[in-house]
């Protein structure tokens, strides 16, 4: 069966859930081959095999991890050529989309970013579904040219375990000088919050200007639900929460099972980052706030009384 390359998203071999989704989607199109860049191959192997990787290409040259995206795109292009892969799937992260863009040009292949579904198409092509304009339209496309390059949004495809052989192959990649021009000279990992990652969490609780800078009720409610914490741009611009937590057009796009907006008005740019959430809940003092147009359930009230009460009730129900 033809190979489908999957770029593994991992930190030192700890594979992110989005990679299991990619492997599940890849199995629909052909035989999944995981491409693992950087150290941690021994740790990652078992997980990759569990979700269907028949082969694992291990690319460990520091040149691939010490530079921004271009070397990985070159490596994938060489792998596509060597294996005749029928498609390449990548995570819809900033890096994933950029690698995808460069790869599509290098291999003269069609490109789809931010897909929420992937299916086999006609004539060996790929059919994708995307959600555009802040979730107000669903677009189905087909890509037939080259080895279609698809980036898939996290939380889009239900993960299925389907054991693969997980045979490791090391490959020799030739990198050009220009690919090594943009060097990562410093990298500082952010302190872990202990909460799930925003893009992968099943539940996200976000706070906005209405918190007045006090995120404690938002965080406590999030913790009662095991949720990730997000923020509106107004809260981020005020310096109340880190930019990496910003949900929206210029922040992170999330699509959890449940999204809770507290003290957020629901501006179009914020909606762009959360409107595809399955269930939406809002707490806002203003009954006219546009966020209430989208909710499955809303409470008109002060978040400083509503959230603590809800937190207490949720915790009580768990006992």
């Amino acid at each position, binding site marked *: 069966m033809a190979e489908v390359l999957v770029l593994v998203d991992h930190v030192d071999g700890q594979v992110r859930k989005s990679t299991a989704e990619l492997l599940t989607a890849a199995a629909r199109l052909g035989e999944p081959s995981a491409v693992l860049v950087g150290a941690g191959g021994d740790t990652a192997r078992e997980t990759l095999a569990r979700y269907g990787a028949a082969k694992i290409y291990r690319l460990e040259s520091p040149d691939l991890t010490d530079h*921004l995206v271009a070397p990985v795109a070159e490596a994938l292009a060489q792998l596509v050529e060597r294996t005749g892969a029928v498609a390449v799937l990548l995570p819809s992260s900033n890096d994933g989309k950029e690698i995808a863009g460069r790869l599509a040009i290098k291999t003269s292949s069609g490109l789809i970013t931010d897909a929420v579904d992937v299916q086999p198409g006609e004539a060996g092509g790929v059919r994708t579904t995307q959600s555009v304009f802040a979730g107000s339209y669903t677009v189905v496309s*087909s890509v037939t040219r080259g080895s279609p390059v698809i980036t898939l949004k996290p939380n889009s495809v239900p993960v299925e375990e389907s054991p693969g052989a997980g045979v490791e192959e090391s490959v020799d990649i030739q990198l050009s000088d220009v690919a090594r021009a943009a*060097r990562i000279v410093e990298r500082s990992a952010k302190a872990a919050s202990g909460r799930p990652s925003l893009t992968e969490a099943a539940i996200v609780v976000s706070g906005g200007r209405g918190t007045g800078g006090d995120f404690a009720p938002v965080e406590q409610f999030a913790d009662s639900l095991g949720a990730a914490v997000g923020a509106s741009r107004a809260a981020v611009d005020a310096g109340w929460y880190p930019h990496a937590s910003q949900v929206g057009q210029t922040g992170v796009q999330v699509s959890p099972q449940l999204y809770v907006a507290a003290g957020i008005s629901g501006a179009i740019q914020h909606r*762009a980052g959360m409107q595809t959430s399955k269930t939406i809940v809002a707490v806002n003092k203003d009954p006219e706030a546009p966020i209430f147009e989208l909710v499955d359930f*809303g409470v008109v009230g002060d978040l400083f*009384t509503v959230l603590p*009460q809800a937190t207490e009730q949720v915790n009580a*129900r768990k006992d």
Partner: protein
Amino acid sequence: MNIVVCVKYVPDAQGDRGFEPDHTTDREGVDGLLSELDEYAVEEALKIVEAGEGEVTVLTMGPEDAAAALKKSLQMGAHKAVLVTDEAIAGSDAVATSLVLAEAVRKIGEETPVDLVLTGLASTDGSMSVVPAMLAERLGLPQVTFASELTVEGSTVRIRRDDETASETIESTLPAVVSVTDQINDPRYPSFKGIMAAKKKPVQTWSLADLGVDPAQVGLDAAWSRVEEVTARPPRTAGEVVADEGEGGTALAQFLASRKFV
């Protein structure tokens, strides 16, 4: 320092955006404007030349109306502008857009070599964030993207790039393609003087033929992927909204329990 800033003319996000029967974005029914996210790139370019020396050229590919995006950039302080417009480009995807922009950057560089190509974070209409990477690929240049801080020293550019897990410092030689986020600066408003001065600034209009691009390589028919179906999602209908009269939090917890979140 010779800087080219790529700016896009986009339908206003506040308007009712939709699709044409041929599945391209409806750009007629909605007022257009300079993509807000590209204002940060224009501002950053102006700051760089103001701190040293050099020239800022703004470049757009789009319909004739896209000249409005150039005008705003010139009013902010850019020195000259290039509009690439041609009937054949309607419906172009990112692959074709990057081809046309790359050829335009090359042509701009024929007079004085281009040191830096600046772009925004994403189009506010398409929001793919792939054109900068593709442009870099086509120009054979390094890309340094998602910059929330930017410094240029001699022939080196250094940026800060943040994501959920890490903050990175990235360094590259020039020339390079750099995209900037909305965290990088506060774009200026055109001053009265700027608005008057813009009227005398040169705007060149190029066709695909001027760039030596074959019309068959761009536009809807050349796209490497094909849109088959577009369906409007039924607008989310507002669910139950209750006023908190002392039991709002309890009602919320009950709702979550009824949906099995607790």
